């Protein structure tokens, strides 16, 4: 049943996307590990980690597209779920440091020793176990989304009001995590990681494995999201987006459907955050910043809302552009460029990069029948 669910109505766009992501999962680490550094095809470790980060963002973008593109819930706080997943992973990584910290305390992370804490707070219990931490990566964002959604959707909070409270949610978490006595490292966050599952996080091999894992999880997240949107539930969710009260009069409990996709989406964002943290080596409260969540919305809009593949594409393209921009003389103008990009996409490419490209492609293919001279475009 699960396989049928994941693979139903497989189309070309999804096939191409999966082939690329899984191809990257295999080829990039191989090239990084096996080819000599001077080779043309060699992918340097720094580039691999950078792209690993982009792909985490791509998974976050897909999770947002699931709720925004398909269900019409414009969450301006999805960064909160990403950050919570990241913190759960960070807590595991902190516990792996053991007595190798600056203060050499075998139990307490450095920042707790610094704060003169005597014992581990209860909410840090269990995080030395990898399976437990992974469970929390899913459970904490999922539970928060469930409770938040339960109240918001049952009270029929929609549209801009919902967006504002999601923004407030992530801002509240930002402020809370900044406080030292919350026990999450205050504004420094969690960093100085040593090992993951016994492997050095800095080692080239570990980085390659993390990159592969990110690709695999991106593919899995995509398959789950796609399975949901092509199912009948997906049709209900689109119906809710386009005519909410009509859907209700058909007998669907709109709040439950919204709650389902919102919770699934939050879990997915949590996984993205958990993969992100070991690759960038730090998690701090700035990940909760409202601006991060808004930027995620821009990725999805740029790539193409309601397409899943477009969301992933948008995340990679915008973040790649950000890297290029902010490393050169144009660095001070990045935010202007980002804002400008959003305006241009909204005005001229309402379907995003993917939607526009596919429309152009479809237009090119049609006249193909009439003028026989034109060679068929390569597949």
């Amino acid at each position, binding site marked *: *049943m699960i396989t049928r*669910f994941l693979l139903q109505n497989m189309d070309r766009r999804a096939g191409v996307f999966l082939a690329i992501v899984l191809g990257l999962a295999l080829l990039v680490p191989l090239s990084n590990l096996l080819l000599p550094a001077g080779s043309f095809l060699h992918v340097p470790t720094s580039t691999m980690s950078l792209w690993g980060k982009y792909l985490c963002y791509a998974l976050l973008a897909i999770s947002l597209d699931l709720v925004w593109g398909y269900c019409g819930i414009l969450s301006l706080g999805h960064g909160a779920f990403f950050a919570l997943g990241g913190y759960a992973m960070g807590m595991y990584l902190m516990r792996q440091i053991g007595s190798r910290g600056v203060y050499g305390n075998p139990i307490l992370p450095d920042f707790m020793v610094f704060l003169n804490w005597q014992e581990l707070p209860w909410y840090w219990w269990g995080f030395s176990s990898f399976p437990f931490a992974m469970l929390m990566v899913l459970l904490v964002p999922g539970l928060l989304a469930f409770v938040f959604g339960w109240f918001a959707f049952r009270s029929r909070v929609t549209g801009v009001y919902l967006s504002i409270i999601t923004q407030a949610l992530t801002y509240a978490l930002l402020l809370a995590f900044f406080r030292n006595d919350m026990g999450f490292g205050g504004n420094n966050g969690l960093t100085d990681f040593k090992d993951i599952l016994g492997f050095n996080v800095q080692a080239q091999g570990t980085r390659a494995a993390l990159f592969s894992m990110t690709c695999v999880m991106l593919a899995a997240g995509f398959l789950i999201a796609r399975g*949901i949107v092509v*199912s*009948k*539930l997906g*049709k*209900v969710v*689109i*119906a809710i987006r*386009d*005519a909410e*009260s*009509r*859907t*209700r*009069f*058909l*007998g*669907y*409990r*709109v709040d*439950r*459907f919204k709650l*389902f996709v919102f919770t699934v989406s939050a879990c997915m964002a949590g996984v993205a955050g958990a993969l992100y943290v070991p690759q960038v080596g730090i998690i701090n409260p700035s990940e909760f910043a409202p601006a991060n969540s808004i930027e995620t919305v821009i990725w999805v809009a740029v790539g193409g809302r309601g397409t899943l593949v477009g969301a992933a594409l948008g995340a990679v393209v915008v973040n790649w552009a950000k890297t290029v921009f902010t490393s050169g003389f144009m660095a001070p103008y990045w935010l202007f460029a980002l804002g400008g990009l959003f305006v241009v996409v909204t005005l001229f490419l309402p379907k995003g990069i993917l939607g526009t490209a596919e429309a152009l492609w479809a237009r090119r293919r049609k006249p193909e029948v009439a003028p026989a001279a034109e060679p068929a475009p390569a597949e």
Partner: protein
Amino acid sequence: MNAPVPGALTSSLLYLDGVSVSFDGFKAIRGLSLTIAPGEMRAIIGPNGAGKTTMMDIITGKTKPDVGTVMFGGTVDLTKLDEAAIANLGIGRKFQKPTVFDFHTIEDNILLALKSKRTVGKTLFWKTEGPQQKRIDDILGIVKLADKRDRLAGSLSHGQKQWLEIGMLLAQDPKLLLVDEPAAGMTDGETAQTAVLLKEIAQDHSVIVVEHDMGFIRELGVKVTVLHEGSVLAEGPLDQVSANERVVEVYLGR
């Protein structure tokens, strides 16, 4: 004068008694009483602001009455249920402005309306079985949209959207259909066809039709209730009602 007769509750499909609702002091419905028998088709007319749409909102759970009884099938109190629960009880509604799902195909619109379990789990792992597909095909035939099944509903003309919505009501297979101005914005030909369609539906469903178009009501040939200022002004066959002086005064005369 319109107080329901004793025993009306148990023999009725829909029973409204002494229903009132006000919005910010404005009494949209005042002391409305109405009984619909199983299998009956009823036309409701009335000038703008007579409370027709508010009455539908009360029956479908969108609006809660301040006072009064609203019973379905003689036993279920509709004022205690929400829209989804009422829809699943078997009350379907067609809106005044045709509301279909523009970004779904016509077939998917019918599929979404098709009578089935509406839970998250059941829809997530849904597979359309043979009999359900046949039912969808039948309905597409009845509303004359079978050849357009793969087109997006948003691309339909106004009249076709009205029919698609009637098709969606059929797919829901409700015990009672509430149809708000089905002939609005239709050509004469379409109006006549819609009347035929509704009469067909009325053979095995109870139907309440709200309509302004007198010609359309005449074609339906059913009992008429005239609403005025939130309560029933007159009730009976169209000829009798249109001869009523008060009705002529408030409505037909204008």
